[in-house]
């Protein structure tokens, strides 16, 4: 197929050549990446302020907000973070992967600006209507709890904008191929982003299916909307949306590993196969939210909650090995071959992209993944549904995992895309650790309170004004204090990130990027010591293998102890 056959190729794109990577960067794509990334960061700021207010309310000793504002801010936090911050950043990532990484031009930048405008209008509408107190319904808006029609409209505009952006991403890749902008197969990072985008396409369609009727229902044009049906449709949107984050995060893991350690995927076949597992099975996970709902039966729940046979989990376990293993091999190549873990000790721990990557992997896997599979087990869900174990799980995945990975990548976009010098480098070195520590405490505090039955989305678990008393054990207060202190630390980490980005973008020297690494200067590789293992054997990822075995042991212990807990409760069928 000749490039000329494609009418889009008539468009005129202006490129610059990146001095570090040699990539040809379409300036229109660059402007769009900047716009989407800035919007993302602004929503992260707003959502972060809300996060602090919420955590200081759930920390029972402080109990900051009054109830109406707690529920209002909770609704806004969910949307600004989970929808606005994450999706704006993902769109920036898609344009980066689709255009910049392939040396290609972004097709139809004008439509991309339209998509951007729709998403901005949508998210602003939602924020306004929520803060006006007209939509205290949480981001899930479970029918028949009714919000103002503008709330649903905002969601729909946002989704249409995001769908449009996805379409442009796919078109960009097709055109890039047709115009021969790249050779051979897609790079793995782009392949991962394509995975995310495919999941996103059917996710957003489900979102439309759930929310368009809700919009008409809120206007009084649709008399009835079955609540069970809505839940199923909503989670066919809400759950796969998390898997977009997962796929995008894993793609960024591969990218950060490459940037900070020079890692190349060990086995493209295996990693690509893992991404395909995501596409095939991950949408079944919406059942996680319906496990203790009236309606569906055992077979439906089990087939879906287990992603057929935990095949999407298998995908994640493959990446959990492949990404660290790729880094291990790269570092061993540089000469760090002693024992199992010398490569890890000598890794560039001061480089923010590296620490963000490692902390993201560790908290995502050890806390987020393990608790997710456990509470997503059909029967065990009875011990977890709507307790704080749920936010505990997803703050480990989408915050410590995805958000931190996105933060890590942002540091590298500053010289490469914003073409500014990164300022406050020492802060950047510390930021992933502070944010990671805070979020680990937040997740652990949530989970510890949730295991003791504390409800999520609940203003006052002491039931001080309620007609009937409920006693809560002192250990619950301890868990909530861990949550509160963790939140303070995480908010400091989040604020550092925002300050570093804003200071660099607005006051950093305008310059072309000089090198990939930001903090660490590529050191001269150590003398390969004579005692170290030589040859191919010294290059195999044995350390990673031991680490993943330790992970599996922890996973099994947590999982099995939950069955034990379940076995002690009342008989129920």
């Amino acid at each position: 197929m000749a490039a000329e056959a494609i009418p889009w190729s008539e468009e005129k794109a202006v490129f610059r050549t990146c001095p570090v990577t040699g990539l040809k960067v379409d300036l229109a794509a660059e402007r769009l990446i900047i716009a989407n990334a800035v919007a993302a960061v602004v929503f992260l700021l707003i959502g972060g302020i809300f996060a602090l207010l919420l955590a200081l309310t759930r920390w029972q000793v402080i109990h900051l907000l009054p109830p109406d504002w707690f529920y209002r801010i909770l609704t806004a936090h969910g949307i600004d973070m989970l929808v606005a911050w994450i999706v704006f950043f993902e769109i920036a990532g898609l344009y980066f992967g689709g255009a910049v990484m392939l040396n290609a031009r972004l097709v139809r930048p004008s439509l991309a600006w339209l998509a951007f405008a729709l998403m901005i209008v949508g998210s602003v509408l939602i924020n306004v209507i929520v803060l006006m107190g007209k939509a205290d319904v949480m981001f899930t808006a479970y029918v028949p709890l009714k919000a103002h029609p503008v709330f649903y409209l905002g969601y729909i505009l946002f989704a249409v904008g995001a769908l449009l952006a996805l379409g442009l991403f796919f078109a960009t890749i097709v055109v890039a191929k047709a115009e021969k902008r790249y050779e051979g197969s897609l790079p793995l990072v782009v392949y991962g982003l394509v995975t995310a985008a495919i999941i996103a396409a059917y996710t957003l369609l489900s979102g439309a299916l759930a929310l368009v009727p809700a919009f008409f229902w809120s206007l009084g044009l649709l008399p009835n909307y079955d609540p069970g049906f809505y839940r199923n449709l909503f989670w066919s949107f809400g759950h796969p949306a998390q898997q977009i984050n997962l796929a995008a995060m894993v793609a960024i893991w591969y990218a950060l590993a490459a940037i900070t350690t020079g890692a190349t995927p060990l086995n493209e076949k295996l990693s690509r196969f893992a991404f395909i597992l995501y596409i095939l099975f991950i949408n079944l996970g919406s059942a996680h939210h319906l496990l203790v709902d009236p309606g569906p039966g055992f077979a439906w729940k089990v087939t879906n909650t287990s992603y057929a046979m935990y095949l999407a989990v298998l995908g994640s376990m493959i990446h959990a090995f492949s990404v660290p293993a790729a880094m291990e091999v790269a570092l061993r190549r540089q000469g760090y071959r002693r024992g199992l873990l010398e490569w890890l000790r000598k890794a560039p721990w001061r480089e923010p992209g590296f620490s963000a990557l490692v902390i993201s992997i560790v908290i995502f896997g050890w806390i987020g993944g393990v608790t997710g599979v456990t509470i997503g087990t059909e029967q065990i869900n009875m011990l977890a549904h709507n307790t704080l174990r749920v936010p505990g799980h997803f703050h480990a995945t989408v915050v410590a995992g995805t958000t931190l990975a996105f933060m890590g990548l942002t540091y590298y976009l500053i010289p490469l895309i914003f073409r500014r010098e990164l300022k406050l480098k020492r802060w950047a070195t510390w930021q992933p650790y502070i944010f990671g520590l805070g979020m680990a405490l937040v997740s652990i505090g949530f989970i510890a309170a949730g295991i003791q039955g504390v409800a999520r989305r609940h203003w006052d678990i002491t039931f001080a004004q309620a007609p009937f008393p409920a006693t809560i054990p002192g250990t619950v207060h301890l868990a909530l204090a861990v949550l509160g202190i963790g939140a303070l630390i995480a908010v400091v980490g989040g604020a550092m990130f925002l300050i570093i980005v804003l200071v660099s973008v607005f006051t950093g020297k305008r310059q072309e990027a000089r090198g990939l690494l930001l903090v660490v200067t590529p050191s001269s590789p150590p003398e390969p010591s004579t005692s170290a293992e030589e040859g191919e054997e010294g290059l195999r990822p044995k350390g990673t293998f031991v680490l993943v075995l330790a992970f599996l042991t922890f996973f099994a212990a947590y999982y099995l102890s939950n069955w034990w807990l379940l076995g002690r409760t009342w008989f129920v069928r």
Partner: protein
Amino acid sequence: MLAPPRIWWKPLDRLERSWLTIAFVWCIFLTAMMPIWFFLGRQNVPATTYRVSPEEYQQRVADFIEQYQVGTEKGVPVVAPPPGDVFLLARQWQWYPILQLKKGQTYRLHVSSIDIQHGFSIQPLNLNFMVLPGYDYVITLTPTQSGEFSLVCNEYCGIAHHLMVSKLIVTD
């Protein structure tokens, strides 16, 4: 980051193959646990559900209370039914009525809502289910402990959600 070499279809390393096998076996185990527990375990997710309109359900609860009421507490009827079908209604922001059950007996506990979604949560036991309007969810329950338990609403149900609490009494 970069496009892979043309031929990237290469065999797996030994360590990769081992991890893939171990992970796959673990996934099969995770899958198998649920059916195994379904047949052998005594705690399984209830699956019995009927359609019911809010008006109908309200009527059933009223009949049920009339038959087995033993008292009132803070304006809410207390009901001590024999083993078998028992009814609980959820509405903004109350559980209705208060149930008094016997340890070791088995009940078919019906729950439904007459307005919006609520969350049925027995605390500190920590057993949780969704309550939807239009759906009569039948939880076949055998209390194995006696005492007074809290019945908390753990699905956000409006501005006084945190006041929606009641108790569940289990006698010896």
